[in-house]
């Protein structure tokens, strides 16, 4: 196959590209420039479109022996990921931009462009496994390295997108990937993993949002409506947050309070006790199926996951064309609207939806 290796400049995508070459594919490396104002960061961690990262990606491509190009996806990334991130926060929701980027950029904009240019698939350094059964049915599974498994952020890919995706690292542990990179002469072998949101390299998400959405102060209230503090921009809070609230009125028994709700219209943050955060039912909208859609009207057993590295939560779930409803076996504390709900059947990814409601 003719494939495009999306190369971030990190160790994973470099090894993924090398493995694709070894598997006999015709590979070209592409670095996505996601910011129109590339900045030079000296941290060594990955930012978005830094000069050092594009250099690292180019050098890795040279070592692997594949052509290398830089694609300017800044406009698409800004419109599809960054603006969406800001909008979602403005509406009091907590989005996951990595999900969005995989859905709209890496496996849509890039894949579409790749197809137009005569390429069949995009290979990335994500940790997830793809399996195709005897009938040609494709399914995505968790990676074997539980610490690196990234199936959660890939659960936004539909069957067509998955057919154009290759994840050569899903059967490996990160520690072995670093060893392999070293053995292959890739000097990014010891480059640190990225953790922050790539377009907020400072890691100060609240400050970044405040710069864009303003810092209009407003009340922090308890569930009875009593003002217990003041905030500097409601959207910089997240459901379940306990720290940094700076409440002026303590609870009677001194028990901690948590953010329960964010109401952007009234610019209010509602706080309460931990037990008030408890939910047992999650409703997700706009479902995406990573394989066949589960049967409608039947309760299925499976696991729900609501964060990239969250624990799988045993649940029963039902589906419709427009939603997934998951009934958790054990209550969960703190879930924000806008987060991604991913359903697993064992290690197989069933699909995902955006959390729209909880009970």
């Amino acid at each position, binding site marked *: 196959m003719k494939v495009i290796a999306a190369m971030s400049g990190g160790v994973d995508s470099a090894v993924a590209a090398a493995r694709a070459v070894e598997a006999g594919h015709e590979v*070209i490396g592409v*670095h996505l*420039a996601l910011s*129109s104002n*590339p900045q030079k960061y000296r941290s060594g961690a990955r930012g978005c*479109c*830094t*000069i050092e*990262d*594009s250099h690292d990606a*180019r050098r890795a491509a040279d070592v692997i022996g594949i*052509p290398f*190009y*830089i*694609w*300017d996806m*800044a*406009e*698409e990334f800004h*419109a*599809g990921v960054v603006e969406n991130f800001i909008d979602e926060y403005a509406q009091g929701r907590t989005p996951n931009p990595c999900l969005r980027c995989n859905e*709209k950029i890496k496996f*849509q*904009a890039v894949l*579409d*462009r790749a*197809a*137009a*240019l*005569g390429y069949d698939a995009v290979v990335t350094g994500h940790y997830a496994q793809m399996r195709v059964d005897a009938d040609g049915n494709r399914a995505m599974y968790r990676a074997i390295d539980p610490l690196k498994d990234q199936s959660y952020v890939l659960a936004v890919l539909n069957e067509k997108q998955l057919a154009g995706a290759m994840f050569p690292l899903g059967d490996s542990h990160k520690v072995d990937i670093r060893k392999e990179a070293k053995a292959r002469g890739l000097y990014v072998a010891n480059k640190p993993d990225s953790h922050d949101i790539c377009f907020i390299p400072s890691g100060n998400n609240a400050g970044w949002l405040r710069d864009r959405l303003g810092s209009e102060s407003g009340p922090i209230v308890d569930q009875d409506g009593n003002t217990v503090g003041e905030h500097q921009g409601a959207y910089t809070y997240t459901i379940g947050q306990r720290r940094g609230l700076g409440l002026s009125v303590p609870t009677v028994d001194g028990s901690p309070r948590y953010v329960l709700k964010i109401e952007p219209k009234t610019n209010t943050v509602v706080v309460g006790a931990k037990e008030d955060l408890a939910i047992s039912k999650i409703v997700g909208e706009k479902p995406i199926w990573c394989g066949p859609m589960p049967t409608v009207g039947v309760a299925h057993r499976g696991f729900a996951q609501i964060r990239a590295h969250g624990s799988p939560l045993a649940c029963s779930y039902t589906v419709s064309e427009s939603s997934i409803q998951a009934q958790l076996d054990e209550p969960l504390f703190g879930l924000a609207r806008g987060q991604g709900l991913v359903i697993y059947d064992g290690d197989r990814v069933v699909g995902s939806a955006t959390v729209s409601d909880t009970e």
Partner: protein
Amino acid sequence: MGIYLDHAATTPMSPAAREALVAQMSQVGNASSLHAFGRGVRKEVEQARESIATIACAHPTEIIFTASGTEANNLAIKGFYWKSIERDPSKNIIVVAAFEHHAILEPVVWLEEHEGAAVIYIPIKPEGVIDLDALAQIIETESEHIAVIAVMHSNNEIGTIQPIAEIVELAGGIPVHTDAVQSFGKVDFDFAVLGVRSAVISAHKIGGPLGVAALILEHGIDITPLLHGGGQERDIRSGTINAPSIVAFAAAAQSAAVDRVSNFERTWKLRESLKERILRAEPDATFNGRSEIMLPGILNVTFPNTESDSLLLLLDNAGIAASTGSACSAGVQRASHVLISLGLTEAQARSSIRFSLGSSTTQAEIDEVGSKIGSVVESARAAFSVGAGAKS
């Protein structure tokens, strides 16, 4: 190997230059040393200087070797500017053509941001030549305050040759600098006749080695140096004299001079042939830079509804090397400021690429490009349409 149509970026070394380089590399001696070894090397360097001076119609003492065209342009722009404000702080205006190479534009911007320079850009007419009337107007109103005027001899992206002699006449006593990196060795270039105060020529654009260029600076003109040290080059440029590269530069210049007319005709014909084949495959294609007086080897084409990075990728895939104006430091293709200066829209500029032909180009290669360009543009259009869909 593939088809190399990026000669304006750099061109293969001529056999004569290679030989001269290798031969000189086996000689020991610092050209500034007083002993026999040093004198031996010095002699070679001075012969090279004289040879280049003769070809450029300059005096040998007017040749100041540098390590790159960029360095030589920086030296000229900053050197004239600093000398000017040292004498008269109100003479702080730098006048430059809007489509200069970054080796001119960036030092100018730097002087504006850090050294109090004021910058006036000369507009470019759609055919790719500077607007002389606009320049006359600028000179008329600001002549008392202009430190230097810089206009390239020919444009590196579109190949149009600029009316340097007329500019010098308009300038009166104001120093005129010209970046002649693309012209030297390819078209008529006569430093004395042009009457510019300074010019830049570079070895690797004419079959010489990388890492050597020269500022040709009129005899008796004093500019402020950039590099301070041993003062090896007329006290204007310091640094150990790079004898092997200089000797090879002269050899390349010699070859280019001997073959200039025949190369010009040959390359011009090949370029016209490429143009015709592109039009046959892509009737919508348009060409940028429509002046009568052009470099022979540059063809800048706009393929509507494409993006240059897709075109370059597909051409590269087909074994054809072309290029665009410039990329940012992270490697992202940018809409060319040259094309924008001609009045192209951002979208048009982003759908343009440059083919540049040179000594190794053959008709068979042009024919092959002609046979492949149609499918390349077709795929680039397909990629453009999905991109446009994603953006809308």
